[in-house]
């Protein structure tokens, strides 16, 4: 039975009111004083947000978007100095307020939602008192505050608020925690609501429902919403208008959809072109990159801050600061050469290729992995069958608890599978533990980690890191090692200078290149890449993805690519496997999986992820939480959240493996043709599909049994 909810909320169309803007930032300049020297972080930022409007500030690290947001609520570190300009909220200048005035301002007029909701809640106090506090501060007594808190929690769609009242933060999931934070923020019915990366760190399906909630609340209140994000998709899905920041300046501003469809600034253009959009693949073209790298925070910059990396730069850009030119209704852009934007061509090069399926490189049969933790057995992987061919990229997609990291670690030999599972590399058995494998096998399977910061030994130089890997994995000695290191460096576009530096002196992108070079030191057959670009800025990500494609084409390496970013997966992966609670739900060629028909979970996942191209066609919002792997639901593990749940069938028996087309398999009870029809229907109709109540009841029943 499918569940259908009310029609999707529309983003408020904002007629420009005559009243004062809720938030008005005028030429704000701010510096951080480090060791006595002031380093400029904001260089004259100006924008305004009207009541009821939502404005997104987007940019890469160090652009100053967070600083701007925190400046608006006067929550700045002690060494921050506002060197010019002002911030007006409903007419009051925030920069000139005394501490007591700031406190009242925060109490009544401004609220904030944070990036890490778990850390934003006091771990030793129950939820109830924390939410109620937001009301007692406004003058309500204990009883009134209690009632208000319950109402606030209902408003953010928390079922059973009384129960949540008595819990501690660590007992709630990330999505629930964020709803609590939002509830507290709305307590004062603020004029300004600031959201600082509110969904970074949340699972995709959870993120979607939180974003929906924000949209709904935005429509209900008249607050001005300022959203900070580095993810353009999130901005697109929530914000009416957007300001693109670079090095402490807003370089382009305007209606979100318009800016993302037709950027009018070289930086915005470069940024959008470096994203894998609209389903492009590595075999179609390389991603555009922005040459150079982000400026150091607080560095002295020429008149146009972007000039050192801009393909259109001329002399005037160095000396005359580009004013915000009007490029359309409500749109501005700070560039002297807007008319020449067409000159920036997309890269013609193609560095990837569609793989022709080669030999079988890796097979996994019936691989399970159960962790034993203080009495519980946690099955992280359950009967996984997998194949990986030479030269192809298999994308692994899934949310927390899906088991994708465990799968990667098992293949690498960091974890050993339960008895009964078999792994084969090139027709010969692969030892469970990496330590026991022969050097040949160790060379063949290597890893690129998510966080380049921790992946490289900060005490070693890049050269030493690579040289050690080369000599240990290949057995080469002396000059041969140096030669190989030089070749690896060249492949990854690292200079001799880079090699002599320590990780601390390298940027994130450069560090990741060293990490990739290290993985390729022994000429591996398979490289496991665990979120290789998640910790990197967008413009850097493109270069890394291009390099990965290039290396794959040249060396015929297979990749096991783990990523939560479907754009990246669609770009790089030839085949995709979707995992949920340690099981593979669907696997197939990438285009087939993206096209459909899909497993309901995949369908929901594809619908959940906000893209910079606008809302996906079908709207599916899963309710409920991802179940704990320690206590998996019976039958089809997805049934507790499935919007196509069939009562009496899905919770009873495990679904069979059905073939959608050759090479495309999934585990579902619903016949393929039926799925195809229903999913096409969902795409055409403008309804939101959600988890039906029967499924949620089943979830509650399981949770009640769970002692944990």
């Amino acid at each position, binding site marked *: 039975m499918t569940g259908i909810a009310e029609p999707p909320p529309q983003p408020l169309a904002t007629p420009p009111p005559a009243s004062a803007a809720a938030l008005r930032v005028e030429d704000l300049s701010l510096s951080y004083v480090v060791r006595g020297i002031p380093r400029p972080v904001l260089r004259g930022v100006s924008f305004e947000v009207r009541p009821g409007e939502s404005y997104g500030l987007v940019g890469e690290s160090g652009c100053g978007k967070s600083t701007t947001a925190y400046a608006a609520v006067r929550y700045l570190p002690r060494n921050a100095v506002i060197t010019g300009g002002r911030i007006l909220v409903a007419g009051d200048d925030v920069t000139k307020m005394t501490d007591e005035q700031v406190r009242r301002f*925060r*109490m009544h007029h401004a609220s904030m939602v944070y990036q*890490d909701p778990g850390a934003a809640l006091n*771990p030793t*106090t129950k939820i109830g008192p924390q939410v109620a*506090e937001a009301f007692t*501060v406004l003058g309500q007594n204990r009883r009134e505050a209690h009632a208000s808190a319950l109402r606030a929690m209902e408003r953010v769609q928390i079922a059973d608020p009384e129960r949540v009242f008595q819990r501690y933060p*660590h007992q709630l999931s990330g999505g629930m925690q964020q709803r609590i934070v939002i509830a507290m923020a709305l307590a004062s019915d603020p004029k300004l609501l600031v959201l600082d990366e509110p969904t970074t760190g949340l699972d995709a399906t959870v993120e979607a429902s939180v974003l929906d909630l924000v949209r709904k609340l935005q429509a209900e209140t008249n607050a001005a919403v300022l959203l900070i994000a580095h993810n353009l998709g999130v901005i697109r899905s929530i914000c009416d208008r957007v300001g693109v920041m670079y090095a402490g300046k807003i370089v382009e501003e305007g209606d979100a959809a318009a800016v993302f469809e037709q950027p009018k600034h070289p930086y915005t253009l470069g940024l959008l072109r470096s994203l894998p959009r609209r389903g492009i693949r590595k075999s179609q073209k390389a991603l555009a990159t922005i040459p150079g790298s982000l400026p150091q925070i607080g560095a002295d910059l020429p008149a146009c801050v972007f000039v050192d990396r801009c393909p259109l730069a001329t002399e005037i850009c160095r000396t005359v600061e580009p004013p915000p030119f009007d490029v359309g209704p409500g749109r501005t852009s700070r560039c002297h050469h807007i008319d020449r934007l067409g000159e920036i061509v997309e890269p013609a090069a193609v560095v990837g290729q569609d793989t022709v399926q080669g030999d079988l490189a890796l097979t996994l049969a019936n691989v399970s992995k159960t962790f034993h933790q203080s009495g519980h057995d946690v099955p992280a992987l359950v009967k996984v069958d997998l194949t990986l061919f030479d030269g192809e990229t298999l994308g692994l997609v899934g949310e927390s608890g899906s088991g994708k990291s465990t799968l990667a670690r098992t293949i690498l030999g960091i974890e050993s599978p339960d008895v009964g599972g078999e792994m084969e590399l090139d027709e010969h058995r692969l030892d469970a533990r990496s330590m026991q494998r022969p050097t040949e096998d160790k060379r063949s399977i290597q890893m690129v980690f998510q966080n380049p910061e921790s992946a490289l030994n900060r005490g070693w130089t890049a050269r030493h890191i690579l040289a050690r890997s080369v000599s240990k994995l290949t057995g080469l000695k002396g000059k041969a090692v140096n030669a190989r290191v030089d070749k690896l460096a060249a492949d990854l576009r690292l200079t001799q200078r880079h090699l002599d530096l320590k990780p601390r002196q390298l940027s994130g992108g450069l560090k990741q290149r060293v990490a990739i070079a290290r993985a390729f030191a022994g000429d591996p057959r398979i490289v496991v890449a665990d979120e290789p670009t998640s910790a990197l800025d967008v413009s850097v990500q493109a270069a890394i993805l291009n390099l990965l494609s290039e290396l794959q084409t040249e060396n015929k390496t297979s990749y096991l690519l783990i990523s939560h970013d479907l754009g990246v997966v669609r770009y790089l992966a030839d085949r995709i496997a979707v995992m949920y609670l340690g099981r593979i739900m669907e696997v197939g060629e990438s285009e087939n999986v993206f096209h459909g028909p899909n497993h309901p979970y995949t369908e929901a996942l594809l619908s959940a992820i906000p893209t910079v191209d606008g809302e996906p066609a079908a709207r599916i919002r899963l309710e409920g939480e991802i179940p704990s792997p320690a206590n998996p639901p019976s039958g089809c593990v997805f049934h507790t959240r499935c919007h196509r749940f069939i009562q009496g069938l899905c919770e009873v028996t495990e679904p069979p493996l059905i073939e959608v087309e050759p090479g495309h398999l999934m585990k579902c009870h619903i016949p393929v043709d039926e799925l195809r029809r229903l999913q096409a229907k969902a795409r055409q109709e403008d309804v939101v599909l959600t988890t039906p109540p029967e499924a949620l009841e089943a979830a509650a029943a399981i949770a009640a049994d769970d*002692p944990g």
Partner: protein
Amino acid sequence: MVRFIARRLILALVTLWLLATIVFIITNVLPSNVGRTILGPFAPQETVDALNEKLGTNRPLPVRYLESLQGLVTLDFGDSFVSGKAVLPQVVAAVGRSAKLAGLALLITIPLSIAAGLYAARRRDQRADRAIVLLGVTLSSIPEFVTGTILVVVVGVGLRWLPVLATAPDNADIPTQIRFLLLPAMAMAIVYFGYIARMTRAGTIEVLQSDYTRTALMKGLTTGQTMRRHVLRNALVPTVAVIAVQIGYLFGGIIAVEKIFNYNGMGSTMLFAAQHKDLPMLTAGVIVIGIVYMLATLTADLIIAWMNPRIRLEAT
């Protein structure tokens, strides 16, 4: 929580056993000849042999070890070489007297140190903070007998504010007793001020920088309200831990203080025992103090665990 407590108790028992074993090794394995050690190099051989016979040190080590463990369990540490009387009651009584002194020292230092730590944390990197940290580092570096000496010279002899010898006349009332104990207690309090203040400061700074403090301030709470409701209970956790550890060090430093101020507590008893090579007395002293330390850290661990909802609500 129950499981946590049970586990800690078992570990504590294991540690106690190891402690006793270490002491046994020092007193029975290290000396090549116990009798000779006690009587010194000039005593005649027959006297030494007779003593060894009497002490039973000629028996095999495993036997003596088991006997010492048995003694530990039944709380029988033997008789003093000097007085011939049972050792444990004397030690316990002495520890009790020292506890008065130590207790007063803690009473003085804990509120002051915590207050100083909080004060410093809120004014981080400003002059007041640097001064407090410097003061803490300096004071905690000075051995108790040095502070004791200086206090005696300045306060006791020079200014004549307080009595120099710590032992009050018999049956003195509490205020008088405190007056006598004040100087030595201060000597000890000064040393521990540094540790506790710095730990409080560190814990508070960490909490002040946390996200949930930010949330509280963003709700519009005053700094006072934020400190009371959100900061304090989280910041004092490391302080509880360090106080427990200091209790262990206290009973070390108290020996020197008791010597200077001529106080008949555990320190003097141990010194006397050392001078007269009264091994049973010394052994009992070490083990009793070891137990005191273990109890202190166990209590601290339990308090800290109880304050952490994750552990407190742990499903059995």
